[in-house]
C-alpha cells in the first residue's frame, strides 16, 4: 500500500489522475453542500437569469431556463459515477466467472461460452446499448442494464486469455495432482493471478462506462430531464452554438476531466501492478 503510493507519487501523471479522481468523487458526494445553487438539480426555472454567460454569480453560466451549470455538473457527476459503480459491480464478476469457466474447463464449455462472447463482441459496444435502449424505456436503471449487458464479455475475454495460459502452469498442475477440486483451482489458484489485470481494467473502464453512458443520453436514450446528465446537457446546448458556448463546452470538458482522471490513474495502476496492455 505504502509502496503503491510511493510509485504513484513518483509518477506525476498518475498522481494528477489520482488527485483528479479524488476531487471529482468528493465534489459529487458532497454536491448538495458544495453546489452554489443546490436546488438546481431539478425542474427549477429562473427565467430572469436564463442563458447567462459565465460570471461571478454563475461560474459556468446558466442554462436555457436559468439553472446554474456548475451546480448541475456536480449533480451530473453523481449520476455518472453511480452508474459506473453499478455497472462495474456487476459486469466484471459475471465476465470473470464466464472467462474462468471457459479458460479452465476447456472443451465444449469453452466453445459455447466463447462463441457467446464473440456474438456480443461483434456488435459495436455503443450500437448494442443503443439497440437495447431503443426497445426499453429511457431511464437510469435501463441505461445501467444496457451498459452492463454490453460490458461483461470484455472481462470474459480478458480472464479467459489469462486463465488459458495459466492452465498449463506448474502450480495448477500441482494442485490437480494433489486432487484439488476444479472450483478450488479456478477460483483460488487461477483467479488471484487475474486480479491485477481485472483491477486495472476496472479503473480504466470507469472512464469508458461514463463515456458510453453520456453517449446514450447525448442521443436522448439515457437519463431524462430534468435530472442533470453531462451527455444530455451537451446535446441540449449544441443547438445554441456558437453564441451560448458555455451550455456545451463546460459539460463536455466535465466529461473529459473525469475520464482523463480515471485513465491517468489506471495507466499508473498498470505500471504498479505490472499488467501488460
Amino acid at each position: 500500500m505504502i509502496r503503491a503510493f510511493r510509485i504513484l507519487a513518483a509518477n506525476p501523471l498518475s498522481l494528477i489522475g489520482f488527485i483528479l479522481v479524488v476531487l471529482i468523487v468528493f465534489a459529487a458526494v458532497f454536491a448538495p453542500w458544495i453546489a452554489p445553487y443546490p436546488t438546481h438539480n431539478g425542474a427549477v426555472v429562473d427565467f430572469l437569469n436564463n442563458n447567462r454567460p459565465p460570471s461571478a454569480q454563475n461560474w459556468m453560466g446558466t442554462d436555457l431556463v436559468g439553472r446554474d451549470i456548475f451546480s448541475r455538473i456536480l449533480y451530473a457527476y453523481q449520476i455518472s459515477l453511480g452508474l459506473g459503480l453499478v455497472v462495474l459491480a456487476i459486469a466484471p464478476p459475471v465476465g470473470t466467472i464466464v472467462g474462468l469457466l471457459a479458460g479452465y474447463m476447456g472443451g465444449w464449455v469453452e466453445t459455447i461460452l466463447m462463441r457467446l462472447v464473440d456474438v456480443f463482441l461483434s456488435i459495436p459496444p455503443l450500437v448494442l446499448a443503443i439497440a437495447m435502449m431503443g426497445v426499453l424505456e429511457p431511464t437510469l436503471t435501463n441505461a445501467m442494464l444496457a451498459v452492463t449487458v454490453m460490458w461483461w464479455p470484455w472481462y470474459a475475454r480478458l480472464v479467459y486469455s489469462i486463465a488459458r495460459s495459466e492452465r498449463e502452469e506448474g502450480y495448477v498442475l500441482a494442485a490437480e495432482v494433489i486432487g484439488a477440486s476444479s472450483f478450488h483451482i479456478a477460483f483460488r489458484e487461477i483467479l488471484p493471478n487475474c486480479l491485477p489485470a481485472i483491477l486495472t481494467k476496472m479503473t480504466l473502464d470507469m472512464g469508458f462506462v461514463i463515456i458510453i453512458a453520456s453517449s446514450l443520453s447525448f442521443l436522448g436514450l439515457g437519463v431524462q430531464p430534468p435530472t442533470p446528465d453531462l451527455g444530455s446537457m451537451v446535446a441540449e446546448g449544441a443547438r445554441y452554438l456558437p453564441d451560448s458556448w458555455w451550455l456545451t463546452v463546460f459539460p463536455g470538458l466535465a466529461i473529459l476531466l473525469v475520464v482523463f482522471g480515471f485513465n491517468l490513474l489506471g495507466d499508473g495502476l498498470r505500471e504498479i501492478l505490472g499488467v501488460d496492455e
Partner: protein
Amino acid sequence: MSPVLRLLLRRLGISFVVLIGVSMLIFAIARIIPGDPARIALGPNATAEQVERIRAEMHLDEPIPVQYGFFLRDLARGDLGTSLYTNRPVTTDIAQFLPATLELVFLAGLIMVAVGLPLGILAARYRGRWPDHLVRVLSLLTVSAPSFVWAVILMLIFAYYLPFFPIAGRIKDIYEIERVTGFMTIDTALAGNWPAFWNAWHHLVLPAVALSLSGIGQAARLTRANMVETYEKPYIEMAQAYGFFPSRIARTYAFKPSIIPSLTIIGLDFAAMLGNAFLVEAVFAWPGLSRYGVAVILRKDLNAIMGTVLIIALTFLIVNIIVDLLIAFLNPRIRHSTRAAS
C-alpha cells in the same frame, strides 16, 4: 490449399456461426420489449383491426421459436421487413443511408492509421524521453472524451471561430449529383464534377477527424507498447551492433513484427467507430445511418432497429475477416505454414 485460403474459409465459417448468434441476440432484444410490439409501432390511435393486421404480418401470434424461424427465413432471402417509419423495405432504407456512414468511418479509419501508427513509432523510438511522454499524454487525452465532445470542440474552433470548414451536411445543395455508389466523394468524381468533388471532401474532413481522435490515441499507445517489447529482442540489438541507422531499425526491424498485434485492435477500433459515427453524425447533421437509426428507435420501429444493428454487425464481421487476412499475409509464420493457423 494455400494456408491463407484455408484461414479464409475457417474465418468465414466462424463468422457465419457468430452471425446466427447475433441474429438470435437481436431477436431476443426485440422481444424483451414490454407490451405489444404491433400496438407500440402503430401508436395509441390505431384501430383493433390495424393492430391485428400488423400482428399477423409480423407473426406475433406464433410461439417465439416459430417467430424466430420466420425471421431467419426472411433474413436468408435478404428481406429485413418493412420499416413502419418510412413504409419502405428496411434494406432500401439502409442502402440509402449506409454509404454516408461508411464514407465517414473509412476516412476516420485511414486517419487513425496514418496518424496513430507514426505517433506510436515515434514514442517507441524515443521511449522514456519527451516525445514518448507527449504522445502518452496526447493519446490518453484523445481517448478521454466521447467523440461527440470532440465533434463539438472541433466544430466550434474550425467551423465557427475559424471558418475553415463547413458546419454541417455532406455537400452544398447547389450540386446535383447522380447517385451511383452512394459515396459522395466517388459519385462526384464519376460525374466529373470537380467543384462538387472538393466540396464533398471539404465537408468530410472535420467529422472524420472528430471520429478518428480516440482511435488515434489507442493505435498510438498500442503500437508503442508492442514496439517497445520488440526493441528488447536480441535481433534488434544485433542490428544496432551492426551500426544500422536508428530510423532504419525503427521502420524495418522493430515496426513490422509490432504491427501484427496492433492490427487486431485497429479492427476493434473500427467497430467502435461504427457506433461512434452515431454521435458525430448527430453533431454535424451528417445524413448517415445515425439519423435513420435514432428516428426508428424513437418510433420503436422494431424491423428497422433489428435490420440496422444486423447490418452494422455484418460490416464489422467483414472488416474483421479482412484484418485477419491482412495479418495472415503479413505474418510469414501463417503465410508459409503448411497447417492452417488457428
